[in-house]
């Protein structure tokens, strides 16, 4: 069941558009913001609220990279693997984080603290290599800097 807050936030978005189904992506983002990911039950609840089929909501949810249909850790690390960051050495940073946390791309630490994912260009190419942790941007990364950053996310 969607919470009152979620329903209220989704209804605010619906007002911006001619009919409720248009707010599908906004609704998915709102639910994910509150729960970390989008479960089958949430898909059903959103479909009901927007008056469209579950399949339609799921087709949208699975299309977009930043909607998670599986549970993720409390913090999501997104490492940019696009070309400018490759030139500037994202691969060694990935290996450093991967070794440190004991997980590869797609993995979540057993304590649920971190999920590690690749991400396409973050638009920070002049400060490469770049990554995000949750919604915070970090750039000009080195392994020392990452060591310190990871400590901030519990």
């Amino acid at each position, binding site marked *: 069941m969607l919470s009152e807050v979620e329903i209220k936030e989704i209804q605010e978005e619906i007002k911006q558009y001619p009919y409720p189904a248009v707010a599908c992506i906004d609704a998915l983002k709102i639910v994910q913001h509150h729960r970390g990911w989008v479960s089958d039950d949430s898909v059903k609840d959103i479909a009901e609220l927007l008056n469209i089929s579950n399949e339609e909501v799921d087709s949208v949810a699975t299309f977009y*990279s930043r909607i998670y249909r599986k549970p993720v850790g409390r913090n999501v690390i997104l490492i940019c693997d696009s070309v400018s960051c490759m030139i500037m050495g994202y691969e060694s940073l990935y290996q450093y984080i991967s070794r440190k946390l004991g997980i590869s791309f797609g993995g979540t630490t057993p304590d649920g603290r971190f999920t590690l994912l690749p991400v*396409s260009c973050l638009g920070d*190419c002049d400060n490469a290599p770049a990554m995000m942790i949750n919604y915070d*941007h970090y750039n000009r990364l080195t392994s020392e800097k990452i060591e310190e950053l990871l400590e901030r996310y519990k």
Partner: protein
Amino acid sequence: MERPLTQHIKPGSDAYNLKEYKQVGGYSALTKSLKRMAPSDITNLVKASNLLGRGGAGFPTGVKWSLVPMYGDTSKPKYLVCNADEMEPGTFKDRYLLEGNPHQLIEGMIISAYAIQAEKAYIFLRWAYKKAEAGLRKAIDEAYKAGYLGKNILGSGFNLDLHVHSSAGRYICGEETALLNSLEGKRAVPRTKPPFPAISGLFGRPTVVNNVETLSCISHIVENGEDWFKGLSLTSTGGTKLFGVSGKVKNPGTWELPLGITMRELLEEHAGGMSPGHKFRGALPGGASTDFLIEEHLDVKMDFSTVAAAGSRLGTGTMIILDDKTCPVAFVHNVEKFFALESCGWCTPCREGLPWVEKMLASIEEGTGKMEYLELLSFNAKYFGPGNTFCAHAPGAAEPLQSGLKYFHDDFVKHITDKKCPWR
């Protein structure tokens, strides 16, 4: 040198709020537009200024606007959409404008919406641009309170609502018809053209989609006129351009410069030349979907027609530099992997061809590639070309592939014959 778009952006400090923006002449172009100009006057002015779209395709902005139906009951509602989904690898120019001067974009959008008589506008914003989102929301709020947005703007009778839609991530959302599907809450699959969005766009209504940088030019054109705008560039195209450089250079960054400066000036004077110990081998001049240019092209003028004449595209004007310490095969593989991953899957050459290309390139890079792959790669690049696919995604992917195969042919061959990457 005039830098109208970035003159009020101070890296490291906050963007101007409404009061500060007004103190430097902000919203006076809007007042002029609404009080002294008819919508068609603005469209004609933008046409005459020779402003070409800054999102990558370089389509004349005034011509795009002039396709929107202006008369009769059937012409409403209409929409204006700002494409702020900047996601092309190597591109980071719109972020600078969004974070640095949101009111400049908002003012440009209100004037543009007035020109096409749209009463609802959306900013389709890249999901990752959280700082830009917060700045835009604050600026929009200020603009509503000051009466620049909402009903009867400045007593003109013109109404406009502006809403920010933050995306959920996919490169294809930057393709304007895919963007419209995404804004309608659907999968971002491109639509058939024609009909063009100016006739049937968002919710089947006349819609103009313009890039952030394009819309940020509008208030300056209204304020200073077409001749001033044309005079900003070194070529016949109007205006300045936000250029960027990334890769192994001393001073990577983004700068507003006249259209028509050379690649060499951009690389050497602004980006400070190559990093110590690194040599220039080539560059994608306008983002990941543009053809490589090499040393012999360094004196090419950075403008739409001149870069096209050299065999590439100006694209977004943000160069990615390939240096001699980076493997060109790995570079091309990285770019093609991106395009394969970001394909929406709608049409066959793109859905099937790109992963095939990606696998062959990975194999060559790992030392297990075969000579026949080179022909197969060229074959694919050819069939990704314009006319064979539904949208410009696969043609974009073909550009670095075909030019990479051409300019770095010997490197590809060496990977195959030596059965390893010489850079690893």
